[in-house]
């Protein structure tokens, strides 16, 4: 299917290209007859008359066409190695086509054609034709795969469909440990997005009109957790989910541009269609015969937006955005449990709708330009309002617990009412910067933000933020900046009953009169103190050496959160060295250290242990620590009067994630979690030899070595029954060593006198 689309699109592209070619060929032939070079007709090169030399844009075909072939060798078949390009084979050959061509006519008509990775699963084709400063057509095809797991196994038959069945001989049981699995099926998890785009735009005077369309399909297999039954005694199984989704998007725009004011109107429509509304599976557990899980519902989205800007005296510019959108979803609802009647439902369709209103206004100015002292004082102000209006009706649902039997009683804690969550955000940002000495600027800023939320424990939070910074560029010897930020977010009283009462209708009986510990503050609405420092320094000791250091530090403290996240910080430090003695050599080295820390508190309590919710000896703390080291070193060199270039690069990245604990006496002495680690070595070398002005030969080699440990996946198979209540899918052990060798030949049409990238930037 994908190949057919590529072929189809290629045919369209060549149709358009051919439409322009007869004119081009005839004119080239005429040139040849008049004494020009016949080779220009054959290869699209340009004649070299003096008149042509003095023309800025030369008529004809220019660009590159590359053909290449390569081999991949890995120690195991690895989806991680080919995650985004499909080169997953243990021993695999491949061919790649790549072109970047532009045909320009003297009357400003043009055709551009680009392609990347034809022959691979991540291919991309782009075509554009039109008349400069007048109109253009565009068309494109872009394929994005993601190869997730090549080592997964499932207990089910029917992977690749929406109905999964158990094989004959499968022995169901009440729990995972007692289930008997006679055999498992290997299943590769991967999906791909195929996006086809078309567009047209036209300029008429100061107006530009545009229309763009995108059609995208997403197909493949992913993993999906699925449960039958519910508390108590729910048991799960990881399914191979068959994905079959379609997105159609249309954007229409009208823009008016003028030196002093601009305005643009956009309409955007996005239609999401999920061809698989649900997945059903034969339950491996005796508690329930079958299960059904819903998939994201089909929906539509419409957005109208207006952007404008106006220039005023004193370097003043005002810009603004006004946007209104609505997302609609009205799918038929599934029954409460597999095989039960939809007549039990209080409503048959979702009738869900969220509208969004966005308004923002920005102003920037140098209002004191006639003042000697303050003429360079730069002021900016921004106001932003964003609001959702959730019109989804509030309904009380009375489910069937354990997916079997009758509906729960009206007083059951399982009876639940949906909460159509809404929020609004109002932000004001004020900034000022002033040059205190030569190219040294001091800046100050203040932000305020008011967030208002419905159906949350805190209805309003207000955050004040102060910012200050200095940046300088000292006579091209050094440059740098340092920026500080302090923010303080304070909310209304934290009231758990807002959420609890909204969810549980009056008369229902629950184990506790709350869903969370009463002293817990959820992180997104908790009171928070934030501090940030960012520093960047570059030093140029000689014209050929650059030294740089960059540091970012941020800490969030949730001082009033007795339970929940209490502290979170992150920092990264990077050192860079770049040495470039002349245009023929560039060496670089960098190292980045990154560290992220989180501390969170909780208390283990259970409804069958009276008083446990107030017992401080059941408190526990988890401390997460993530450490990363990344190193890169490389060289790019030109030899033989730049006929030959060699580009080499080595990068290494290592990540270690640790979680440690402290606990109250009731919980015993905790053990730290096994480290989750990952490391990757990558070496890459690319050589290019300019055989002639028209032909470049290339040779590339890539080596990657990846190692990871993750207790969640390592040595977990569907057949081991090793996990309580869940039959797993993946034995994801993505370690690999892989090599890619690649040779290529590039033909340059209309070969330039100085090849791209070789000319010194001015």
């Amino acid at each position: 299917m994908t190949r057919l689309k590529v072929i189809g699109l290629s045919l369209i592209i060549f149709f358009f290209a051919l439409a322009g070619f007869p004119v081009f060929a005839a004119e080239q032939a005429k040139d040849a007859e008049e004494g020009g070079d016949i080779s220009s007709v054959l290869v699209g090169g340009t004649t070299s008359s003096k008149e042509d030399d003095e023309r800025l844009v030369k008529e004809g075909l220019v660009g590159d066409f590359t053909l290449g072939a390569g081999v991949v060798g890995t120690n195991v078949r690895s989806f991680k190695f080919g995650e985004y390009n499909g080169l997953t084979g243990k021993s695999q050959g491949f061919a790649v086509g790549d072109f970047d061509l532009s045909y320009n006519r003297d009357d400003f008509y043009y055709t551009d054609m680009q392609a990347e990775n034809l022959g691979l699963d991540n291919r991309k084709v782009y075509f554009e034709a039109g008349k400069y400063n007048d109109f253009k057509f565009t068309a494109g095809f872009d394929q994005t795969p993601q190869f997730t797991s090549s080592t997964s196994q499932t207990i089910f038959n029917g992977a690749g469909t929406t109905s999964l069945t158990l094989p004959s001989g499968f022995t169901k049981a009440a729990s995972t440990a007692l289930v008997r699995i006679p055999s498992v099926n290997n299943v590769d998890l991967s999906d791909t997005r195929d996006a086809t785009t078309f567009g047209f735009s036209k300029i008429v005077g100061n107006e530009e009109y545009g229309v763009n369309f995108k059609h995208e399909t997403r197909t493949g297999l992913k993993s999906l957790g699925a449960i039958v039954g519910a508390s108590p005694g729910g048991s799960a199984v990881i399914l191979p989910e068959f994905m079959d989704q379609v997105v159609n998007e249309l954007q229409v725009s009208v823009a008016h541009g003028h030196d002093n004011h601009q305005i643009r109107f956009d309409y955007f429509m996005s239609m999401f269609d999920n061809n698989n509304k649900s997945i059903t599976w034969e339950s491996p557990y005796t508690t329930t015969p079958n299960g059904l899980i819903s998939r994201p519902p089909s929906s539509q989205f419409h957005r109208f937006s207006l952007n404008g800007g106006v220039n005023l005296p004193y370097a003043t510019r005002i810009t603004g955005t006004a946007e209104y959108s609505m997302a609609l979803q009205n799918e038929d609802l599934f029954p409460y449990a597999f095989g039960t009647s939809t007549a039990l439902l209080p409503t048959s369709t979702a009738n869900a709708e969220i509208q969004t209103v966005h308004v923002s206004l920005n102003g920037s100015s140098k209002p004191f330009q006639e003042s000697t002292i303050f003429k360079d004082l730069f002021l900016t102000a921004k106001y932003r309002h964003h609001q959702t209006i959730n019109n989804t009706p509030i309904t009380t649902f009375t489910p069937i617990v354990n997916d079997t039997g009758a509906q729960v009683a009206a007083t059951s804690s399982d009876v639940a009412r949906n909460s159509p969550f809404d929020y609004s955000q109002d932000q004001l940002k004020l900034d000022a910067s002033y040059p205190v000495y030569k190219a040294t600027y001091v800046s100050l800023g203040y932000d305020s933000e008011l967030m208002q939320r419905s159906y949350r424990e805190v209805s309003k939070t207000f955050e004040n933020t102060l910012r200050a910074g200095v940046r300088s560029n000292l006579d091209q010897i050094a440059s740098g900046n340092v920026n500080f930020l302090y923010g303080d977010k304070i909310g209304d009283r934290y009231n758990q009953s807002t959420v609890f009462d909204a969810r549980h209708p009056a008369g229902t009986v629950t184990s506790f009169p709350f869903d969370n510990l009463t002293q817990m503050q959820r992180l997104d609405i908790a009171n928070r103190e934030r501090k940030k420092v960012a520093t960047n320094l570059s030093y140029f000791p000689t014209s050929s050496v650059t030294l740089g250091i960059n540091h970012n530090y941020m800490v969030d403290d949730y001082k009033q959160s007795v339970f929940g996240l209490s502290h979170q910080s992150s920092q990264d430090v990077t050192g860079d060295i770049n040495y470039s003695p002349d245009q023929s050599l560039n060496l670089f080295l960098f190292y980045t250290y990154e560290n992220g820390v989180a501390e969170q508190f909780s208390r283990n309590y259970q409804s069958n242990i009276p008083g446990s919710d107030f017992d401080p000896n059941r408190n526990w703390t988890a401390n997460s620590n993530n450490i990363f080291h990344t190193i890169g070193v490389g060289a790019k060199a030109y030899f033989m009067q730049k006929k030959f270039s060699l580009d080499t690069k080595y990068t290494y990245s290592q990540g270690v994630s640790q979680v440690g604990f402290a606990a109250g006496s009731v919980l015993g002495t905790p053990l730290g979690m096994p480290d989750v680690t990952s490391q990757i070595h990558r070496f890459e070398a690319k050589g290019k030899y300019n055989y002639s002005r028209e032909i470049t030969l290339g040779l590339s080699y890539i080596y990657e070595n990846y190692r990871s440990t993750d207790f969640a996946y390592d040595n977990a198979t569907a057949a081991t029954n090793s996990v309580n209540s869940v039959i797993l899918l993946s034995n994801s052990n993505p370690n690999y060593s892989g090599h890619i060798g690649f040779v290529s030949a590039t033909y340059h049409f209309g070969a330039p006198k100085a090849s791209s990238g070789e000319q010194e930037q001015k």
Partner: protein
Amino acid sequence: MIKKYTAILIFVALMISLGSFVANAGEVDWGAINPKQKNASSVGDTKECFLCHQEYIDSFGRTKHAKIFQAKYGKELAGTCEKCHGPLSAHLNGPTREERYASVVSFKKIPTEIKNKICLQCHEKGLTMHWAGSTHDRSGLSCTNCHYVMDRMSRQKLYIDEDPKKACFQCHQGMRAKMMKTSHMPVREGKLECASCHNPHGGPGPSLLKGTTINDTCYNCHQEKRAPVIWEHAPVRENCANCHDPHGSNFDKLLKVRMPYLCQQCHSGNFHPSTMYDGSKVVSSAQFMRGKACTNCHSLIHGSNHPSGSFFQR
């Protein structure tokens, strides 16, 4: 509320009307940039620029800029050069080499603000409409920090390098390292670029994002998560970045913190949400820690449209 929106719209309309009557507010004053060009005039059709700058003009001719300039301003070369370097009569006719050299606006000599103003003559619209006062504008960046207009170094958008990421990594070195993490979007593989999500020229969204919110930006590719559903997970609807780090992570699905600890930062309910899952429970409570951890069961964590989905399980 309606009054507030009406007031804002009237204000915008007034500003645009005012702008229509304010002459020259957005135009470049070449004489102010370089006093030597104060009395210079446009030279129109001349090929004299080739005499000294043939190599640069040849490479410039390969850019889309050059092609659009010719279509817009005519084939006269100076008309093109003068759009960015000012009127060139003094430069071409100066009595000495020094005079000629001093009588042109060179991008090596002018401050950032002037460079940007020259580019904004044509580009103060579309993606760059909101440049003035944006984070990068206030940080002192010039267009030439990321774009090189005198040659075609990249396939599109005239970046300074064929790899668009390099423009961003000049300042955002920490992001370069994040891209190397095991869980990452296909940025280092070239299927996405920073500008797939960000508009570095500014806009109405946070963190220079393309959308008006973080979620609006994410929905550009993850449309299935945009649909309103019966059972909303409030922090999900509000901000994807509450749980995900889009630039890279050591954990599946770009999660900021590993499950179940990520979920337990907000959930401490009866039984398993408040249980301490330490190293001693990797076997006995594996259903909460192995495989997909919390989402072994709560797999519709982004919201469910199933009548029995109040716990995001269906």
